[in-house]
């Protein structure tokens, strides 16, 4: 197809519309985080008085700093466990012949469709009884569980693309199936695993329902839950500047990951959905 200048103009316009729609809310929350408390409610898009005080403010509050620590720690541990378990399962699904493949895929699909809110009540109850309420494992366990289906789908899609002749070659050379997996396939599988890791980390990082239901203090509260419970000046005023600054801080890590790994994330998200 040849492109003439009017076509270019149309595509340029489409590009501009998409960029504006995608970015305006992000720019807005950044602008809001840079407003002084007095001008936070003036309703202008661009701050009249610029300040970084909201940021220094939140980093002085233990409710935010410990929430940030909890989010990072819980997210990394839950993601690592999910990707580890899912890698093993996905390898078996993509590669080995055994009955019961359909069962694990059916269970995964059921878990994906499970309304998470239905888990919250019983888990709240159980966690209080066995002492997991408001602890890291109390969030890691549900996060890992709900991350497993996506991890298994994405990883098995990636694993199917791997040139398995190499594995056979290694097995012919005398390697056991496990050695063949560890020494030959694992290095080839790394890009898929990294992509899955990022996707799963985003899910854990974003969670809100479990975080507000199963935690209550600095011990395990993650950032999304902490933001929603920031103490205001009074009961009826929200600390807009603090909330906006915390929102920007919690957004930055995922934004960097997405921009760096854009191509991989697109292929990872679509790989599980449509068979290639």
């Amino acid at each position, binding site marked *: 197809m040849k492109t003439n200048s009017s076509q270019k103009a149309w595509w340029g316009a489409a590009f501009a519309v998409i960029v504006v729609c995608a970015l305006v809310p992000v720019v807005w929350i950044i602008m809001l985080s840079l407003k002084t408390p007095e001008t936070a409610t003036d309703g202008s898009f661009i701050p009249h008085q610029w300040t970084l005080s909201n940021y220094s403010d939140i980093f002085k509050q233990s409710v935010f700093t410990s929430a940030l620590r909890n989010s990072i720690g819980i997210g990394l541990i839950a993601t690592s466990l999910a990707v580890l378990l899912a890698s093993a399962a996905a390898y078996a699904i993509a590669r080995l*012949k055994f009955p019961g493949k359909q069962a694990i895929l059916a269970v995964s699909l059921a878990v994906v469709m499970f309304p998470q809110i239905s*888990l*919250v*009540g019983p888990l709240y109850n*159980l966690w209080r009884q066995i002492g997991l309420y408001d602890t890291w494992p109390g969030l890691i366990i549900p996060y890992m569980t709900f991350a497993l*289906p996506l991890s298994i789908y994405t990883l098995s899609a990636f694993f199917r693309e791997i040139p398995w002749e190499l594995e056979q070659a290694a097995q012919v050379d005398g390697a056991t*199936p496990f050695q063949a997996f560890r020494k030959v396939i694992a290095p080839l599988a790394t890009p898929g695993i990294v992509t899955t890791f990022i996707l799963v980390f985003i899910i854990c990082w974003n969670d809100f329902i479990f975080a507000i239901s199963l935690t209550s203090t600095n011990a395990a509260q993650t950032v999304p839950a902490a933001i929603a419970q920031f103490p205001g000046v009074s009961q009826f005023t929200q600390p807009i500047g603090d909330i906006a600054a915390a929102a920007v801080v919690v957004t930055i890590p995922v934004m960097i990951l997405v921009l760096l790994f854009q191509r991989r994330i697109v292929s990872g998200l679509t790989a599980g959905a449509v068979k290639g």
Partner: protein
Amino acid sequence: MTSGTVTAPQSAPAKPQRAHLSDRARAERNLGFKLVAPALIVMVAVTAYPLISTVVLSLQRADLRFPDANKFIGLSNYGAVLRAPVWWQVVWHTVIITVVSVSIQFVLGMLLALAMHRMIFARGTLRAIALVPYAIVAVVAAYSWNYAWSLTSGWIPKLLGLSSDPLSHPFGSYVAIIVTEVWKNTPFMALLLLAGLALVPDELLEAAKVDGANAWQRFIRITVPLMKPAILVALLFRTLDAFRIFDTIYIFNQGANGTESISMLNYSTLLDRLNLGLGSAVSVLLFVFVGIIAFVFIKGFGAGSGPIGESS
């Protein structure tokens, strides 16, 4: 690994391998079970206990405020929920939000997918930027739009010249919540559709063009039928997700102004009013709804062969 070591033994074990086939097959099966078991056990254990416990609790009078009054009461909780006007109200709210937001997401997602598919320049940049709403924390997206719509702090009422707070009445609240959902979720819809678009061969479209089909005819007659599996998967995922809407409403108004969803009602019954019996009945009913939606999509429209990825 050198090629010499690969080729040398290959010819030799060809015959003995046949004798060991059943051994190897058995070893492969065992390894398969061992590799799948941990993930399967975690998923079943963590979801099965709460599921069973929810069903059991839903058949009991179980109120954490009166822990000694627990008692088996059969289906009374379901009767109480299904007779309560508030239940049917939240179902209605949830259906409205789901249908409207998923429809808009589908139309915009398709346009976005077409743009990402056909864009003649800066395609990578476009995809990265389009991914931004997907990656943003749901709570952050909700706060950003909430403050944008609020009369006291936002730029949207100013832009639209509104004098009353749009978030103070149901219609404005619905518009704001649906806009937030659409903004956050359209990129994911577009990505799933984009994967479907990639399966449409260009030659087919060119051939139709030569035969005189215009752009709309080519889209409806060729592109859409060929990407039907991707469309159904995208709609299934998004519908299930929209039906469970919680975060956005919680941040906006915790269900005030007639925006309470099933998940909001479920949460407040369980964790604010601590009525585990009634709350569990709501959970089970929500689960049944989700099951029906999935069933209709998978059996009725034949979706689901895609996400499993194992159909062939």
